[in-house]
């Protein structure tokens, strides 16, 4: 059975679209548009790729949240990675990071200058690369939310068991729930609901949203990434809003368990401890990141190479911060589509495929019929 195709059926999508229009029509005429933040960049991509915005009534605003670990990686991190690469260390990275601008340059540019940068799809490849080059220091660029942090932790755990000594991780891990608290209370945002990520939730579990949901009385609906999942999730949000409820509603229960993936969470807790983390465009959020615990510090590239990750500088005209928080649409940035395009990105929201600016540029453009 193909569990992707089943959730892409166009007739069902049409039916859910009609449902959404009906439910939205039941809201009061004077009500301001419903602001739903899709927290996760993969939702942003799926919404754009499937043209879902064009299927919704104008009374529903989908706001793209900070849900892309690439977008929120600060420029100073890229600068530090480039310094490592330029000093002869082999870097291993997900393709997503290659074109993210640091303060002055990108990893792609460093690679073209001769730096050894390996692009991989899986952390397991980093492991193999380190084994093949036992005389060379290999650094894996550890970015990600809980979904990606868990596989990286598994890789580190295995490296530890086998005794691989030339591999370390430059960490910029982020955790989703702390960011939601900040977004929920932002007065400029006026969020009515969160559409919560599918695969982050697979690790952290549905219950992880309870504190946010209760503290701010905001509906949190977990949805998968297929079009039917997203549409049904929006329908679920509308129902909560109409009934004046604020619950955590797990609509991706074919994968997400109430308490998440225990084994992965235990591993994360064993390797990492919470730390303050700098989110590009948002700032430093307390306890929103993960860094190695003391007994794992040999895997910490910052300590191994005595690196300092500075703040770095961002093009001052870039509106990524406001875009990331969903305060403005990318089209409101003066650089959008002119100075800043996917082939010549300025801000990280344009670099990453799932970055809001990139998704807007590539899939919705300016003036696509809605």
């Amino acid at each position: 059975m193909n569990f992707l195709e089943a959730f892409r059926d166009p007739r069902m999508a049409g039916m859910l679209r009609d449902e959404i229009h009906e439910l939205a029509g039941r809201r009061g005429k004077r009500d301001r548009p419903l602001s739903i933040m899709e927290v996760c960049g993969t939702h942003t991509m799926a919404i754009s790729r499937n043209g879902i915005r064009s299927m919704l009534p104008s009374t529903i605003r989908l706001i793209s949240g900070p849900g892309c670990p690439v977008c929120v990686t600060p420029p100073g991190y890229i600068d530090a990675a480039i310094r490592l690469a330029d000093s002869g260390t082999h870097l291993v990275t997900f393709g997503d990071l290659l074109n993210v601008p640091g303060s002055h340059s990108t990893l792609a540019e460093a690679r073209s200058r001769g730096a050894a940068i390996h692009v991989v799809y899986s952390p397991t490849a980093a492991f193999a690369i380190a084994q093949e080059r036992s005389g060379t220091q290999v650094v894996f660029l550890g970015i990600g939310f809980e979904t990606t942090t868990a596989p990286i932790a598994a890789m580190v755990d295995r490296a530890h068991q086998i005794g691989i000594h030339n591999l370390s991780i430059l960490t910029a891990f982020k955790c989703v729930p702390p960011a939601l608290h900040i977004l929920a209370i932002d007065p400029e945002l006026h969020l009515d609901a969160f559409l919560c990520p599918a695969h982050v939730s697979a690790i952290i579990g549905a219950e992880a949203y309870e504190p946010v949901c209760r503290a701010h009385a905001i509906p949190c609906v977990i949805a998968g990434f297929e079009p039917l999942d997203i549409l049904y999730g929006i329908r679920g949000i509308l129902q909560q809003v109409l009934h004046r409820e604020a619950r955590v509603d797990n609509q991706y229960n074919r994968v997400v368990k109430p308490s998440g993936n225990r084994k992965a969470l235990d591993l994360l807790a064993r390797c990492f401890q919470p730390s303050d983390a700098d989110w590009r465009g948002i700032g430093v959020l307390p306890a929103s990141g993960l860094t190695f615990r003391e007994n794992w510090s040999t895997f910490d590239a910052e300590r191994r190479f005595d690196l300092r990750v500075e703040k770095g500088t961002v093009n001052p005209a870039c509106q990524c911060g406001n875009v990331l928080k969903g305060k403005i649409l990318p089209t409101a940035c003066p650089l959008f589509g002119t100075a800043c395009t996917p082939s010549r990105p300025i801000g990280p929201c344009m670099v990453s495929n799932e970055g809001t600016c990139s998704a807007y540029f590539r899939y919705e453009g300016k003036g696509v019929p809605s």
Partner: protein
Amino acid sequence: MCLAVPMCVLRIEPDGTAVGDLDGVRHGVDLSLLESVAAGDYVIVHAGYAIERLDPAEAQSRIRLFQDLQTSRNADAGEGNP
């Protein structure tokens, strides 16, 4: 974030990894984030790692839910519009 796809576990290799299948394509899957996965299970694969199981029964009941919703909508439309 986090692209991940459901794959069916075809077999478990001696080293504890799995061979997963998606529409005939085989891909090596690391199982270290899950307990006791067996051949025939569906898992969600992100960056080469199975991060969680997919429960086929829940998936099927979700699809049925969509179908029922459609049936009841059609029935409603039928009544209103003889």
